[in-house]
């Protein structure tokens, strides 16, 4: 079974600084997708960035970028120029290429609570 591990329950960063959130996963699949979701205090789950396993180039979305190391099964999220609005829970998630009844398409980590300090 696939598992996703986020080893940092809580982190903090000064405004305008850079922070990296860690994520490792376990799978025997060769082709899959990885995601980072943001959940602010409003509870809304927001997709931040996605990475396709067959693409070697790391995904970027404005201030958000990932460091995808397929052999090491590592998928970290870097937030540059941190802003107060980045304060949220961040979930790493793995999507299986095939799934069905009794299973789940998205396997989530337990989350990292990020606080951006002014």
């Amino acid at each position, binding site marked *: 079974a696939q598992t*996703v591990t986020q080893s940092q329950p809580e982190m903090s960063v000064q405004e305008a600084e850079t922070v990296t959130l860690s994520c490792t996963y376990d799978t025997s699949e060769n082709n899959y997708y990885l995601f980072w979701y943001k959940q602010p205090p409003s509870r809304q789950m927001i997709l931040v960035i996605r990475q396709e396993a067959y693409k070697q180039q790391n995904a970027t979305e404005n201030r958000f970028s990932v460091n995808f190391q397929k052999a090491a099964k590592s998928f970290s999220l870097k937030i540059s120029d941190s802003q107060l609005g980045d304060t949220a829970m961040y979930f790493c998630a793995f999507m299986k290429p095939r799934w069905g009844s*009794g299973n789940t398409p*998205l396997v*989530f980590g337990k989350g990292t609570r990020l606080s951006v300090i002014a």
Partner: protein
Amino acid sequence: NAGVTQTPKFRVLKTGQSMTLLCAQDMNHEYMYWYRQDPGMGLRLIHYSVGEGTTAKGEVPDGYNVSRLKKQNFLLGLESAAPSQTSVYFCASSLRAGADNEQFFGPGTRLTVL
């Protein structure tokens, strides 16, 4: 375009009571999902639907039932609520299966069972 909406936003039940959570999406998505989120854990899939009139079990289906009579609506029912079902419930939808089809989430329903 409201996206994915959920009603109610909050609910308190007594053990043994029943209730239905409603999820609605206006994006013409085929797939809809119900997740639960417990403290210190990520989201876990309860049930899902791949189209109108279909439902299937997810990772943690026990104690819940679902129905998808209309494409835009996905209902989650608790027939006899238990304290273990205290959680935040999220509905999501996607155009199709596959990771290139983003799942859009509703704002969540906080349910407390006393």
